[in-house]
């Protein structure tokens, strides 16, 4: 891999950019890999990257049915934070946060990780109690968190309407929270993994999981059978489909989750704002669009489109909280297929099939975990046992009852 730098950019400019390398190769699939990863989203690529660079397993393929990064990785609102309530989640997301903090350098690819601060708003006594609890929990987990008064909120966000329908009573700030460039995360990991020897195979759909003697031996794909010592499924919205191929069900369902962007404008909002009380999730991208998270529809769907009603109920609150946005315009809306578990926490787990591992259930909030999830999953696959960070997220918890219920504990999305 040729390193990127200001120097390389200048040098290549001289040769009219004729000499840039492929960012990743497009090899034909081999007959057999030590590990096959299903799904070329951020999590799958990160898993492959860490397998190859940290676990010494380089005979790895990532099988992607479409174009890499085209799943939820390519369609999320890019919010990154680690201020989770429960210890298990804090462990996962903070490990991710630490990796984010050096990711551009590690990958030699600018993922534009922007720690511009993430502000949760509280609009009721109940919200205040919720952030009170969460703020303390996060703080004691060694993760940064600060309470803001409404006045401090106004200072950070002069354009906010504090006296909206549910007046802003306070805020919880994670300064290290922010956003990252979603596509760059997928591309950066792909480039890194490819350089470490991983075969990234796009336009190749897994159509079957082959199991012999209750152990996985490979996958059937649209490009033929590919043998594998171990298989990691990181297929997000399609995890149930893969599970069905392997003969079991998962405790999750898929819903459309929507988002939209406005036309680009000069900088107007400098942090990420999340209001669970009136449902506003907004930040401004480096290119200038307001990136706005919408809601998820309550019906199961793989259509990658949702109902318009949710868009209305996203834009309404946005204009309630930021009335000055009323004359701005929405440029594009889209949807992803999110795989949601009952406790809104992910699954990183062994399965009833030997050597078949699942990483899924990230639902509406897994982008921020990409590095941490890939890291934990790679080490777990390599070891054949979920590591300390991944272990609490096993499928067994749905039978034992040991849920990791951030949602029930706080009713927080994203």
């Amino acid at each position, binding site marked *: 891999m040729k390193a*990127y*730098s*200001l120097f*390389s950019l*200048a040098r290549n400019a001289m040769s*009219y*950019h004729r000499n*840039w390398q*492929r960012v*990743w190769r497009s090899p034909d699939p081999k007959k057999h890999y030590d590990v096959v990863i299903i799904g070329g989203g951020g999590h799958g690529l990160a898993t492959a990257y860490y397998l190859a660079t940290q676990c010494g397993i380089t005979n790895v393929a990532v099988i992607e049915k*479409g*174009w890499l990064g085209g799943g939820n990785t390519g369609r999320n609102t890019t919010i990154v934070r680690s201020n989770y309530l429960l210890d298990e989640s804090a462990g996962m997301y903070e490990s991710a946060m630490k990796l984010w903090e050096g990711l*551009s*350098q590690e990958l030699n690819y600018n993922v*534009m990780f922007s720690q*511009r601060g993430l502000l949760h708003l509280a609009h*009721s*006594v109940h919200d*205040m*109690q919720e*952030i*009170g609890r*969460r*703020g*303390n*929990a996060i703080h*004691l*987990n*060694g993760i940064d968190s600060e309470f803001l008064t409404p006045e401090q909120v106004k200072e950070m966000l002069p354009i906010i309407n504090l006296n*909206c*329908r549910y007046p802003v009573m306070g805020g919880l700030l994670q300064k290290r929270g922010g956003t990252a*460039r979603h*596509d760059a995360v997928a591309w950066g990991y792909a480039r890194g993994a490819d350089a470490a020897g991983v075969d990234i195979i796009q336009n190749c759909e897994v159509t079957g999981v082959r199991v012999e003697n209750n152990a996985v031996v490979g996958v059937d794909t649209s490009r033929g059978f590919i043998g594998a010592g171990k298989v990691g499924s990181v297929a997000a919205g399609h995890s149930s489909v893969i599970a069905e191929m392997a003969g079991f069900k998962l405790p999750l369902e898929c819903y459309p989750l929507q988002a939209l962007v406005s*036309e*680009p*404008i*000069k900088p107007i909002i400098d942090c990420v704002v999340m209001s669970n009380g009136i449902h506003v999730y907004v930040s*401004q991208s480096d290119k200038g669009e307001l990136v706005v998270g919408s809601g998820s529809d309550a019906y199961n769907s793989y259509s990658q489109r949702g*109902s*318009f009603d949710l868009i209305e109920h996203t834009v*309404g609150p*946005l*204009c*309630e909280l930021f009335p*000055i*946005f*009323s*004359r*701005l*315009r*929405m440029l*594009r809306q*889209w949807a992803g297929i999110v795989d949601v578990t009952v406790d809104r926490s992910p699954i990183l787990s062994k399965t009833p099939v030997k050597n078949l591992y699942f990483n899924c259930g990230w639902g509406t909030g897994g982008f921020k975990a990409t590095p941490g999830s890939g890291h934990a999953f790679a080490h777990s696959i390599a070891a054949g046992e979920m590591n300390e960070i991944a272990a609490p997220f096993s499928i067994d918890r749905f*039978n*034992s*009852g*040991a849920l990791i219920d951030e*949602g*029930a*504990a706080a009713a927080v999305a994203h």
Partner: protein
Amino acid sequence: MTQSNRLDNGGRIDRSKPLTFTFDGKQYTGYQGDTLASALVANGVRLLGRSFKYHRPRGLIAAGSEEPNALMQLETGPYTEPNTRATCVELYDGLVASSQNRWPSLNFDVGGVNSLVARFLPAGFYYKTFMWPASMWMTYEKFIRKAAGLGVSPVENDPDVYHGTYAHCDVLVIGAGPAGLAAATMAAGSGARVMLLDEGSEPGGSLLGTSKNTAALEFVKNSMQELERNENVRVLTRTTATGYYDYNYITALEKVTDHLGPGNGGSLPRQRFWKIRAKQVVIAAGSIERPLVFADNDRPGVMLANAVGTYINQYGALPGKDIVVFTNNDSAYQVALDASDNGAVVTVVDTRSSVDPAVKARLEQNNIRLFEGHAISSVQGAKGVTAVRIMELSADGDSLQGQAWEISCSIVANSGGWTPSCHMVSQSGGKLKYVDEIAGFIPDDNRQKKSCPNISAGSCNGSFDTDTCITEGIKAGLDAAQRCGLSASAPSISNLNVSEIPLGDISPIWLVPTTHPVGEGSAKHFHDFQNDVTAADIHLAAREGFLSVEHLKRYTTTGMATDQGKTSNLNALAIMANIQGVSIPEVGTTTFRPPYTPLTLGAVGGQESRELFIQERQTPMHEWHVANGAKFEDVGDWKRAWYYPKDGEDMHSAVQRETLAVRESVGMLDASTLGKIDIQGKDALKLIEMVYTNNWQKLAIGSCRYGLMLNEHGMIFDDGVTTRLGENHYHMTTTTGGAARVMSWLEEWLQTEWPEWEVYCTSVTEQWAVMALNGPKARELLQSITDIDLDKEAFPFMTMREGTVAGVPARVFRISFTGEVSYEINVPARYGKHLIEALAEAGKKYDLCPYGTETMHVLRAEKGFIIVGQDTDGTVTPHDMDMDWIVSKTKEEYLGNRAQERVDTKREGRPQLVGLLTEDPTVVLPEGAHIVSEVLEAPPMPTIGHVTSSYMSPNAGRSIALALLQDGINRKGDVVTLCLMNGDVIKATVSDTVFVDVEGVRVRG
């Protein structure tokens, strides 16, 4: 100020109505009927903006909503609006527009240096740099962000109002050009309810911009007359169909008063947002001309040929006197003729080596020079075209040869063919197919869902002459009506013979070569003007492996600007196809997503704003609370009285006063918001037994009991008191926030799981207004205004009596959330205000104190009563709440029973509810504070619990708190440590949860 480029005659402008406007501070005149763009054309203004990345000077490209370049900051102050396409702004008197993305001025823009270093800024350069040192990214980012973006957001609140509405029709027609007009008239003639939408300020579509268009305008007029006569027809102009969703749900934005200028709309809304459900949809959205991609094709003055024609014919403005028409198809020849007829010197450069002699002949009549088999090799003039150079194209079209000719000109009118507007079809889920004859995609599998198909007609279907458009429109209109069960016969319409030259033999040339290989000379070949994406960027993307069209889009940002690639997408695909040596359909298109053109946020969300943004529910006693100085708290949608500060009191002192008063004399609380459900039927008891954890068999008629509800995870999800009113009749109460959830929970089980049970549930929340009287003097006070015998034997704790209170019928429940003698008085809601007034009056003698929810919380905490949602959080079982007493050991089934037996729910050491007494009784713990198992120098520290409720209790004479603590029940008496966010370390003793009247005698008193 004279309008230098205005023609003496023609166009649809009203020369008797001059309008003045300013652009970048300079004043100009235009006419009624102009757009901002046409007025600028008429005034000879070519430089209109700076490009996004390289800050190159830019002018108009188009005349319609596909315009990628001419984005303006419209108006100022609260009315300002960024990124407005000049082509879509109708001129009004006093309009103020300014250019964007330049500093200090449009003419001299510092950002223009980007143009000089453009070479170092290829697609995606930012992914490759700005990484060192790591800490510097936030600084780099600040500059990048400042440089990016286009216009500026308003910073004042929007003074305008918006209207949203639903609409229904049998046939919706999108686009009122010849095809759409024909379709709408046919459908309407069949008796269908019809809606016809068009973006333009008047119907007619492309017909308005054709020359010698008497017959065409006659057709438009006749069609409109017919439509307007029909009361089943709604024609909406200035209305863009923005989205096409499932089941023929189409959204549209109508600009109601924008064209009148800010503040001139009177009482009308600025814009109206339509949500239309159509049985059938006819798409007649026309087509968009494609630019040719040639060297420096972004210079101001390089325009789409058809736009030049439109400015001449529709607006009576000639963009320039020397025009070079550059084309690869016949349609631009009409523009050449029109320009020449209006006095321009025109030269045509055609990339095709031999042009249809019939077409050629028409040029000759006008003395227009024609260069066949030639192409523009360069464009001169940075801030506006001054000349072009042309050279001969090689036979394969891949290179230029021979000598370069220079032709001076101010306008280059170019046409690379036409792209049918398939946006709506595609949004609806329809598939497209590529057709070589037009070098473009047209609708293929022309249907959304089997049940909701749509039909495309006219040029959006790839038919480029007017008479065919009309024929297709007629058929589409009749077909659509027929599918609605209506019919009519097709009329015979004679050909319009509009003056136009159709496409002819198009010879696609996707990238016009120059003397240098692409990307190597100083020239740039733009295909996406707004995002500054060039053919060289596509080459780079391909080289680096971004081969998928979706990667291409995201890596180069082509098609992602505010025009969403209306003019650029096909060119980009084609260039990528050429690089890869595959066909265009093999490369495929990116996904079309709504909206078609950018959609005002206020229009989408504006109607349900301010007081209509989530209903504010108030109790019947609301006015009384207001009159008595209450502060309110939002609980769900309800406004609840929170506390009643007296002069100068803050919340704390008011609550302390109210809390004492309740235990000393008597207090009253508005409890109307609690959910109430009437349950009847012979299986009512069965239902109640299933949804609550405890036993209900023995509850006597007239008695009340407290119950906990669990979900099937075994976790507490609501609680409340239920009273048996009759043999098979119960009155259930729920928490305020849980009312709807519980009602739905009961119905769900009844209807889906036990449909054979005979139980009827009816919400009666709003039927009753409820006042709770609490305190030692409650009985005496209430007795003074009721005919019910309140004697404690006659009316014991946990029973209900009916009678009158303050002269109105009432149900009085003797239940208590404070541990005091307490009566919850329910009266029909219309008496609520009467009741509170009567209580206040009668209460004067007894020091009656109105109290709010905050005091209620303190009072219940003093007694250790939980609040679901505060002391519980959805992960808590009855056992965790130390409430095993309420869980039946004898019932075989109830909801949530099995879940409590799971390994984890049964495990030792789960968090349990306990009391906490701080070492220092004056210290009130913050709610949410955590208990640590070990105090360390700094976090992380292991935590074992947290405070759920915490108050200063005047009745306990100290601070009290409730907490969830691991293995809490076994830790009673232990001293635990809490670490606060500010670093304070507080010690507290784990205690029982009851802090006042531990024996519970007062409540029965």
